[in-house]
């Protein structure tokens, strides 16, 4: 069961990656990356169970945090150049 | 505390760096750096005496025996480097009293001293460490501080020069890291002595060769060995005078020393010079550097860039000496390393003096000033003659030793390259002399007065170079014991 979940996560990652490459534009990419980020959180959680050491879930917490910060940073900093360039 | 000297001399400058930030005052930060430099020099001197009397010192950091912990090794092969680096730091400290005041504003000066402390500590640590990964860390400490210091240069071109240095330097350091990784993969250790023993026993030649190549290329970048010298002219030419004076005497020299150390005590001369064609490549690169860089120097219009290109040529000489792989060659390389450090430091210091007095180091601005600034230009000429290798200057002693080592090894083409390079050096020094004495002055503005501290440093360095030329006993004995320690595995 866990193996199947892992496979699904990897497939999802690949699909999100395709959207991140195709774009078009910034927002589609942010969306894809945000989704990819959630999948890495799941990856960490699931791989802990898959390989028998689920104690390291702290990393998952951190991933969730930095993923959020990265999205905020993209929004805040792109927003700025656009208003400044105008 | 005496037992802790190997670590103290690295720790003093590193510990002084945060102090400089905290003090925030120019004069106090200067004092801290001076003390750090003097402290390191004192440690280096005591260490040199101890090593000469009792042989190599091993210091296990944290009390963990190598290869489990990190080890510092002070031996005949690195005491000359320690003396040169900490001596140059003292000279730079005194020199900076006058120089930094004219180039850097009050609020940034303490930060410059912070970086000088860090660079000093990094270079000393790189010299004494007996662990390859620790060497990488110290290399990065000194490099990162150097990038920041170069960026402080007065012209805007300092910024791209610093960036270029940063990118090239980081690629070089990463190459070193790849080399360390490959060596680690086939041995499982990072301690230099342990590495040497296991590399000799390992039967994975291909990884070993590649490891050596990566480490050598990476260090050659840091040492500005031709043709990997692209960062050096900009970095030395644009840095503040104190910084170029200090760096010219130390940073590439330490990289060359590490190259030597790894060649002879880790990879082994048999592998490097016997199995791999590193010796021939080194001689080729050294010979080419000597000729090509000297030729480029002849066409420079900026005194500091001219000196920087001349440094690349001189690095070629040192590299050629090392690449011979013989005791005479290595000893000559060390001798030239010491002498060139003194000469080039005095020249960059004099260039800084010119910059302070005229506001420019363009050759065109020097026209006809030989008579108005006789002492400054006299210093440049004496040191310049040392660069050419005219007896009885220090440069002559080094070049003579190198020439005899080359003859002994039958490397005639390299010898010819050296002679051509010396003639070219005569050309560019001659050009400075011609401009300063035989051209009509371009401006009527009177040069401003020279800070005593700067003049003093220039003349002390020039005097040292002359003394080393007249009586080469001290540097020669240091160089010989270094070669002895390296080639006979005295680690």
């Amino acid at each position, binding site marked *: 069961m866990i193996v199947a979940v892992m496979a699904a996560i990897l497939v999802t990652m690949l699909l999100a990656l395709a959207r991140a490459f195709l774009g078009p534009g910034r927002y589609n990419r942010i969306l894809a990356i945000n989704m990819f980020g959630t999948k890495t959180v799941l990856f960490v959680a699931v791989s802990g169970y898959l390989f028998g050491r689920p104690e390291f879930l702290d990393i998952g917490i951190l991933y969730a945090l930095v993923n959020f910060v990265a999205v905020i940073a993209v929004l805040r900093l792109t927003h700025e150049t656009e208003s400044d360039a105008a | 505390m005496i037992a802790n000297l190997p670590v103290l001399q690295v720790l003093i400058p590193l510990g002084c760096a*945060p102090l400089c930030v905290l003090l925030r005052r120019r004069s106090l930060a200067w004092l801290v750096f001076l003390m750090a430099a003097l402290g390191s020099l004192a440690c280096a001197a005591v260490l040199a005496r101890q090593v000469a009397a009792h042989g190599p010192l091993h210091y296990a950091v944290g009390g963990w025996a190598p290869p489990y912990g990190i080890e510092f090794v002070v031996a005949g092969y690195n005491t000359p480097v320690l003396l040169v680096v900490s001596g140059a730091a003292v000279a730079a400290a005194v020199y900076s009293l006058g120089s930094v005041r004219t180039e850097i504003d009050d609020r940034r000066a303490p930060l410059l001293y912070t970086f000088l402390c860090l660079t000093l500590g990094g270079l000393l640590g790189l010299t004494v460490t007996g662990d390859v990964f620790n060497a990488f860390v110290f290399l990065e400490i000194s490099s990162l501080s150097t990038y920041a210091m170069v960026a402080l240069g007065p012209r805007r071109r300092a910024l791209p020069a610093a960036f270029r240095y940063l990118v090239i330097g980081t690629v070089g350091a990463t190459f070193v890291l790849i080399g360390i990784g490959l060596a680690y*993969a086939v041995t499982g250790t990072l301690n230099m002595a342990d590495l040497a023993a296991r590399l000799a026993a390992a039967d994975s030649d291909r990884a070993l060769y590649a490891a050596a190549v990566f480490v050598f290329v990476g260090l050659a970048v840091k040492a500005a060995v031709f043709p990997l010298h692209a960062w050096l002219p900009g970095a030395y030419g644009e840095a503040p005078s104190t910084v170029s004076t200090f760096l010219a005497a130390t940073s590439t020299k330490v990289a060359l020393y590490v190259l030597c150390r790894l060649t002879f005590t880790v990879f082994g001369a048999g592998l490097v010079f016997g199995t791999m064609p590193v010796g021939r490549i080194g001689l080729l690169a050294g010979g080419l550097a000597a000729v090509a860089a000297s030729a480029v120097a002849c066409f420079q219009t900026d005194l500091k860039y001219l000196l920087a290109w001349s440094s690349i040529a001189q690095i070629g000489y040192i590299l050629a000496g090392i690449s011979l792989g013989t005791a005479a060659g290595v000893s000559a390389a060390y001798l030239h390393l010491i002498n060139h450090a003194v000469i080039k430091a005095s020249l960059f210091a004099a260039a800084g003096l010119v910059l302070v007095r005229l506001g420019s180091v363009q050759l065109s601005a020097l026209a006809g000033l030989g008579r108005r600034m006789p002492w400054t230009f006299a210093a440049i000429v004496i040191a310049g003659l040392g660069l050419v290798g005219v007896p009885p200057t220090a440069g002559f002693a080094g070049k003579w030793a190198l020439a005899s080592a080359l003859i002994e090894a039958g490397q005639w083409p390299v010898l010819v390259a050296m002679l051509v390079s010396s003639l070219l050096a005569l050309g560019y020094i001659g050009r400075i002399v011609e401009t300063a004495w035989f051209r009509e002055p371009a401006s009527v503005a009177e040069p401003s007065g020279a800070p005593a501290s700067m003049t003093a440093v220039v003349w002390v360095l020039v005097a040292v170079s002359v003394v080393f030329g007249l009586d080469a006993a001290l540097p020669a004995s240091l160089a010989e014991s270094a070669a002895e320690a390296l080639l006979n595995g005295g680690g």
Partner: protein
Amino acid sequence: MTTFTVINFTLLTILTVTALVIARLRALYEAAMLTALSSLVTASLFVLMDAVDVAFTEAAVGVGISTVLLLGVLALTRSREAVTPRHRHLPAIAVTALTGGLLVYAAQDLPAFGSADSPVQRHPVTEVYLHQSQKEIGVPNTVTAVLASYRALDTLGELVVVFAAGTAVLLLLGPLTHGKRRQNLDLMEYKVLRVVSSLLMPFVLVFALYVLFHGDFGPGGGFQAGVIFATGFVLHGLVFGLDKSQRVLPPAALGSLVPLGLGLFVGLGVVTMLLGGSFLDYGTLLPTGGPAAQHLGILTVEVAIGITVAAVMTSIFFAFAGRRPTR
């Protein structure tokens, strides 16, 4: 093929393809975002290869700090790359081919990936770090034991590098240079974000403290804690604006915290020397020596790292964020 191999291969392929796309993208914002993505993949690979501490650091540094810095710089400069002139490709291809060829040559002698019989695993160091350390130091996380005790000097060097970087950024971009302050743009208009961020902040800070003190038993330690702490303030600064963050955490206070941590580390080393041991020999800290003294030393070191790293990373962010676009 084992499950591990499939996962490993997939992630490595994703990483390589991402790198290729980044190399070809001329829109730099997009390239920076994909760099963040590649960093996520790298961190996942670290987890997969059992390097949990490294994964922790890579996530915090690569996805958090690096991305924010890159995007911040892009906001200050142009975000589109010029076309690379054709003549630049040739030397690059030559160098890359040579280096790659050398690596492929070397790889033929490299031990099989995952082999328990490689020189790395057979070396006596392995036994000492994994098992003897339990008696000598008594810290279950052997990475912490090696980092903070066996190879503490590397860690000191690492902290010096962080310190140097912080000082360098201060020198180049700090209030000392004559750059003007930018207007206080922020994301204040989003109420949801404000509420969520205020909820998250205390949690992030507690999490940082937990990571700092839990480093002996699980992934974590001073460096990771410092970066998480800084990430918290980055979030705060992004949402509430720089001025508010600097009111909470004045730059002057940060400026004195930076040298404090490094001073603490160096001071610890000096104390061990004064007590008659060698530099950073924690065994001298307590008369009984042994694991208790080691614990004391490691804890001090972790706290020192945490202080300096948090202060440096936060002030680097402030320095970049406080810069006003010039055009």
